[in-house]
Every structure is written in C-alpha cells, then in structure tokens.
C-alpha cells in the first residue's frame, strides 16, 4: 500500500530559508535508507508559497490568487510517497526522519477500488487519458 507523507510548512520554510549543509546531509542519508529498503517511490521538497499560486473555482469562474499564503501551518513544505506493508511501517520509518521542530502528516493513497462505483469506466478512461497526457508532456 502507498502512503503520502506531507511535511508541514512553518515560518522558516515559508521565509525561504534553505536547509543547511548538515540538514541536507542528514536528509540525504535518511532518503538513502528509504531507497535502500525499497520503500521510497517519490519525494520532493517544495519552495515557499510565495512562488506558488492558488486557484479558486466557482460558478462565476476561476480566480487566481498569487502566493504567499498566510496560514503557514496548513501549507506543505515537502512530501514523500512510500510503498510499505502497513500504516505502522510508515510511522516507524518517519520516526527516523531527521526533523526537530516539524509536523508531518501521513495519508494513505487511494486506489481505484477505494472510489467504488462512483468511478465509472468512462471516468476511469478520462482519468487515464489525462494522466497519459501529463506523462507525455514530461516526456516519460
């Protein structure tokens, strides 16, 4: 089963402070352990929300709001996607992450089956077409 680990932002990450060499080394070591154990599928750090944007959809149309966003604690500073055998295993792995004053959140990635009947074959096909286009654009 797949889990997404979300690293919450804080004033430091939102302030645009980049990790120190020591922090990068520690995180690199942790990531290496995840890769060596065969559990890491993806993982990235995100730049502050000042470089991002937010889109709001409504009947009136779509409005675009440029970052930064103020509610720092609800923002995300990075993520992993891990493939493990249980929720307990992700927790056990993430206890080893070299964080000091950080909050992370662990969420299970939904599979097709979790959507049940609402995911009709037509919707699946559309979803698939979209994903393929994304991949083609990324040239993978």
């Amino acid at each position: 089963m797949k889990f997404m680990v979300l690293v919450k932002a804080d004033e430091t990450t939102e302030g645009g402070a980049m990790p120190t060499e020591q922090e990068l080394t520690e995180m690199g070591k942790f990531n290496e352990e995840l890769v060596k154990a065969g559990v890491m599928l993806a993982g990235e750090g995100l730049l502050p929300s000042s470089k991002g944007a937010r889109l709001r959809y409504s009947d009136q149309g779509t409005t675009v709001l440029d970052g930064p966003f103020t509610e720092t604690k609800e923002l995300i500073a990075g993520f992993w996607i891990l493939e493990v055998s249980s929720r307990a295993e992700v927790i056990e792995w993430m206890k080893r992450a070299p964080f000091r004053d950080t909050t992370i959140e662990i969420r299970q990635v939904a599979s097709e089956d979790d959507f049940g009947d609402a995911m009709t074959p037509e919707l699946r096909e559309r979803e698939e077409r979209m994903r393929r286009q994304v991949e083609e654009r990324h040239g993978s």
Partner: protein
Amino acid sequence: MTVTEAHRSIDAVWRIESAKLIAALARMVRDVGLAEELAQDALVAALEQWPSSGVPSNPGAWLMTIAKRRAIDHFRHRKMAQRKHEELGLDLETTQDAIEVEPDEVPDDLLRLIFTACHPVLSTEARVALTLRLLGGLTTDEIARAFLVPETTVAQRIVRAKRTLARKKVPYEVPVGAELAERLGSVLEVVYLVFNEGYSATAGDDWMRPALCADAIRLGRILAGLAPREPEVSGLVALMELQASRARARVTADGEPILLLDQNRAKWDRLLIGHGLAALARAETLAGEARRGPYTLQAAIAACHARAGAPEDTDWARIAALYGELADVMPSPVVELNRAVAVSMARGPEAALPLVDALAAEPTLARYHLLPTVRGDLLAKVGRFEEAKAEFARAAELTRNAREREVLIARAKQASTGNAG
C-alpha cells in the same frame, strides 16, 4: 500504548530491522542459523517489554544490544561446555571484539546474507523459504500460507537449510569474479520465483499470496541498491514493477483472468509503470554495449505494453524483435511461440505460421495447449478453417481450465462454419 498498538509497531520494526539485524549477527557469529535464533530472542524480548515500556527511540539498536548479549551468553556457555575441546570454532575474546562492530559499518552484510540464503548447496524450495524468512522477515506460518504447504514442511525446510549451510561450512561472503555472475543468477531466480508465486495467485485468495509480490519487489529494490552495477538486477526490478502495475486489471471480480489486450488500462498503476521504465532505462544503460540479459529483455517487452495507451498502439514490431533477442540469450520454445504471436500482430498470420509450424515437433510443447491455440488462430485468419478446427479441438483436449476449454470448443465450431472468430 495498547498491546495491539505495540504489536503493530513491533511488526513494523521487525520488517524494517530484521534482515539488517540477522545479517550483522551472522557476520559476528559466522552462522546464519544461530544469527537468526539470536535475532528471534531479541524479538521475543521486545514483545515482552515494549508493550509496557513503549517502543524505544532507536529500536534497531535496542534489538541489536539484546541480541549481542545473547550471543555473548551463548559463547560463554559453549566455552564452558567445550572446555575440554581445544579446537573451539570461535573463542570468547574474538567474539566479543567482533560484537563491538556496529551493524551499519559493513554495508555488505545484507548482500552476504542474500548470497548465503540463495546458496546453490540448498534446494530451490529451501532457498525461497530461507530468503523469505531471513530477508523478508516472514514467519514460518506466513511462508506456509503463501506457498500453500503445511507449516511443519516449511519449518523443516528452514531447519534443514540452516543445518546444510553449517555442515557444508558455506562461507558468509559475497562471491567475486565469474562466480558472482553465476550466483547472482540464483539470487535473482529466487526473487522472481517469489514474485511469480504471488502474481499467479488470483484475487480473493489469502492476502499472503499477493503480498509476496510486494515482498519480492522490495527484495529486488534492496538488491539493486546493494549491487548497483549489475544490469540484470535492475532489469528484474523493472520486470516485476511493470508486471505488478497491471495487478488490479488482470482478473475480473470473480477471479477470471483477463488477457493483457483486454485489460482496462486505466487500472494500470502509473506510478509503478514510471518506476519500472526508470529501472529498465538503468538496466539498459548498465548493460551498455553488452547483450541485454533475459530479465531486462522481458522488462523491455513489458514496457512496450506499458507505453501503449491503447492495445492498438502496441509496438508489435519492437516486441517481435525483443523476443528474437530473448530467444538468443534464453532459447526456449515458449519464447519462440510468443515471438510468433508478436510477429503475427506486426506482420500478419502468414509471416507467423512458419514459426509456429517449426515448433510442431518440439517435445516440450507436445502437451502445451497454447501451441494448438495459437496455430488454430493463425490458420483461421488465413482461411484454412478445417485445419484450424482440428487445432482448436486439440487445444480444448489439452487445457486443464474448464472456462478455457469452453472458449476453445466454441472457436472450433466457429472455424467449422468458416468464421475466423
């Protein structure tokens, strides 16, 4: 922390730590069987203590400390028991020195453990059981359920395997030179066997069997990290990831298999496909000018399907060429038959028929129902209906699957009315 929560955490810790723990202990005590017993002792201690004391902040180090203490006790007892014997395999002082080494200091430990568990002195069944036990952290009961054999059989296999390794004095090391390539073959074979055991299980089965696929992929990825220059290791990872990406699409709700070309591709796992394609690219880069090995080639074939958005987009010419290459490195009538199917898709039934006809005299395929199935299909397509009918009838006799037999009998009928089906 409740007892259940504690047990879940202990399971998770065991999954993460057990192989490293056993690998490091085996280096210290130079006996895989003893190493596993010591690790088990540490696990029992954790089960006794953690529910009340909580999981320690560094559970791996905690387990290692307990196991080392048991190791020292073990050798102390043995020394007393064997005082009269001069030739002691290991004396207490050297053991204690060795035990000072931290597990992470010797990265080759896991690799040594894999090569020992897959050693050619052991039978294939024993290699599989020992690998899952020592590297996958599975219990005897879990292995038994996965392979549909009684637990006592698995337990005996493991005990005998450990005894054989000790009796034959199998060195705890990674082979070098020409031996490495040969022994690596045995390791990859075990991993792929575990994968297939899980993959051939249909939905609805005991969860243990599909979980074997995940275990095999994890072992493959670990191996790829430990042997980063071996193209076939990455090739096998790619093959397993690409096959596993179709797991959700390959059976109906009733557990009936769905042929690859009929599968709903929206159910294919894109993340695994992406990973599989990356692993394949790595394998091909590593192989460089050298001939691609069988796992890499099979992964390349699987990749052709994965890249095709719809069945009609499949690059059959490339698949046919890849089967040709595969037939060179791993000659097999089944590969030839698959090549014939790909050729017929790429260039039509006339081009494929001679390839299938050439297999008619192949003794290993004499009872293989897919040979007459494929031949019947090609014959029907070129309008030789009488011959096609005979082939379908023969295929129906040979298959052991009732559903498949019905389909073949229906096709035989269709052919007799001059319908290509």
